């Protein structure tokens, strides 16, 4: 299998990397990549840019915080075997609801609607204390134990993130070949013709959003275990823009772009402050992102494809999926 060729070196990474790199660079990149994957999935196959992916991830995270162990006296503790499915279910539902609200919108209007939902949710979490514990949010969140090992142990956690990311990528590639996945792509390419042959638009659009909610929710759960806390800031404008940035610099035309973008983003976010004046590190981040967007309009993933094509050794003969015609 081709996939194992790429997975194997990644799985062997714990032998080389120290804990900081394993957890705070690679695991974090994988988690952000998973959440960005949900956006890339929507952008690639439905042709819609959604700003609500950090929100869906946040909903899964908040549900897990509410029903899991925490130190803030809010919520009811359930076993993880119940809490994790509930969290995923809620993120899928939240995705479906966002899809239902935004189903008639495309382009800039879809962006506006999803952004409005995300910001409304952000202010709600910040002011609601009975479910979300307001500004301060939840702290002291623990990951489940398997035997004596906590899932948050660096090597275990990294492998978990890697496994989930690989599984989700496989699910995306399976889903887009299914009848529903093909319908979703048909909706992207020609809404009116899909309607004209009698297929209602609502079901494929809502399914696409719900599936994106599932991906984002998986990332959201990992993110809660990584951060060991969640607060209104985790669903604020900052993370929303971060996810968009990751997707755009990675490339919106192929699902794997999300992970490439995430690695670039995390490296920049972590180390920019070491390279320049402490007061100016955000300028460096901004300029680098600007350069990537200018030089690689299709993202880092697209830049790679171009390079390969130019030197004429593209073994796959270019991309085999996701030739999107989207206009946004």
């Amino acid at each position: 299998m081709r996939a194992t060729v790429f997975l194997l070196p990644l799985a062997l990474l714990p032998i080389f990397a120290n804990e900081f790199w394993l957890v705070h660079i690679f695991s974090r990149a994988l988690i952000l990549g998973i959440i960005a994957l949900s956006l890339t999935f929507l952008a690639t196959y439905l042709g819609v840019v959604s700003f609500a992916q950090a929100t869906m991830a946040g909903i899964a995270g908040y549900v897990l915080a509410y029903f899991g162990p925490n130190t803030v006296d809010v919520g009811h503790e359930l076993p993880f075997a119940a809490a994790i499915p509930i969290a995923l279910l809620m993120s899928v539902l939240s995705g479906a609801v966002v899809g239902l609200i935004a189903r008639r919108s495309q382009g800039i209007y879809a962006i506006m609607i999803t952004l409005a939902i995300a910001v409304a949710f952000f202010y709600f979490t910040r002011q609601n204390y009975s479910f979300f514990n307001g500004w301060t949010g939840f702290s002291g969140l623990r990951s489940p134990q398997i035997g004596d090992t906590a899932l948050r142990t660096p090597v275990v956690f990294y492998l978990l993130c890697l496994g989930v990311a690989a599984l989700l990528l496989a699910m995306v590639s399976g889903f887009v070949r299914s009848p529903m996945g093909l319908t979703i792509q048909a909706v992207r390419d020609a809404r009116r013709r899909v309607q004209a042959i009698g297929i209602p638009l609502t079901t494929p659009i809502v399914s696409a959003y719900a599936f994106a909610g599932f991906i984002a929710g998986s990332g959201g759960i990992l993110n809660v275990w990584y951060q060991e806390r969640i607060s209104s800031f985790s669903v604020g404008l900052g993370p929303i823009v971060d996810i968009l940035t990751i997707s755009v610099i990675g490339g919106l035309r192929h699902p794997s772009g999300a992970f490439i973008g995430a690695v670039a983003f995390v490296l920049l976010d972590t180390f920019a402050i070491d390279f320049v004046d402490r007061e100016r590190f955000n300028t460096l981040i901004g300029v680098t992102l600007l350069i990537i967007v200018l030089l690689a309009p299709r993202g880092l993933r697209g830049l790679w494809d171009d390079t390969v094509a130019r030197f004429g050794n593209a073994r796959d003969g270019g991309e085999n999926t996701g030739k999107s015609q989207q206009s946004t």
Partner: protein
Amino acid sequence: MLNRTRKVGIAVGMALGLSVMPAAAAEVKIGVISILEGAFAALGQDGIRGAQLAVAETGGKVAGKDIKVITMSSDASPDSAVAAARKLIEQDGVDLIVGPLSGSEGLALRDLSKSFPGVTFLNGSSAAQDTTLRDSSQNFYRFGGDGAQWMVGVGSHAFNKLNYKRVAVVAEDYSFPYTQVLGFMTEFCAAGGKVPKKFWTPIGAKDYSSIVYAIPKDVDAVFVALGGADAVNFLTQYSQAGGDKPIIGGTITIDQSILDSKGPFKKLLIGAPAGTPTVGDYDGKEWKAFTASYKKQFPKGFSAPSIFAHHYYMSAKAALLALDEVKGDLSGNHKALRASLNKLQFVTPTGGTMRLDKNRNGIIDNFVTEVFQREDGTLGNRVLKVVRDVDQLLGQNETDFLKKGPVSRDNPSCP
């Protein structure tokens, strides 16, 4: 998919390079976390200056070891403060952390400190009550006060001197203003005052009209615990709507930037009392010396050290004094250093004696200030009263104080 392998190659190379970095022995690494981005950036930078000033005063060396200061930025969110601290600890290998700046960040680092017993945390200027009062952490120190200590003296001044009997509260909806309101109401309610209504607004709110028109007619004054632009927006809208109740300020409500801004609301502020641990033009001799030292070190800094420079300075100074006392001994999870910090005493820039209570929270000096009009028509703050030796229990019995429960929207209450 080829790029994945290349990426891994690069990453593995970088990781290998990093894992063989030698650890320098004759060096003490201090990480400083402050807000260097967004609305607080200028103030956060001043916090860093405070820490740098304390290091500079020792000549950059303590007990024969070089001091290396590594700064990190957070963005006022607990998540970013935790990420910054983790990078300082796990990547840069710092021994001590000074910071963070704001309330909920402090709570988050307090929780984080329990997972890193080998690092000593000294709070910057964050002032939520529960950072040290409840669920405190053995290696988290606050050489400063909380938001309630910063209001000591104001409640009784408002009731006894200004004769305010009923006061409405307008404050931002998070941990620091809750603590400030507690500090004000503890004295004010004990003196016999009433707070019939409290309004909590989201931070960054622009439109206060729903609050302005809901402030009861029969109150004598409004206690406003809002910061920066929120305070300007509220006061402007309140005065435009014809509001004429006197104002009582929280610690960060009436700073010089608000007094220097334009608008009819300024007439509401003349005579307004406020509580703060830091007054820029205080004329105590220690403060004058501190200001001179600050100005010499940072000619491009503010005209006087801000509350943030003051607090980061005290924390960094405490760390350096203790390090000096134990000759830089950081063995056994900083055992000697922490024993030294626990009983450390030093004279603060405001002239009082800084020392810790059993929860490792500072016993501080606090000021009651008043806005006055200078001869040229500009406004300034002047000191009405200095309250020395303010502790976190506000002079009350510990059991009774804790029994009142954590601060929240509804606690305390005296309608």
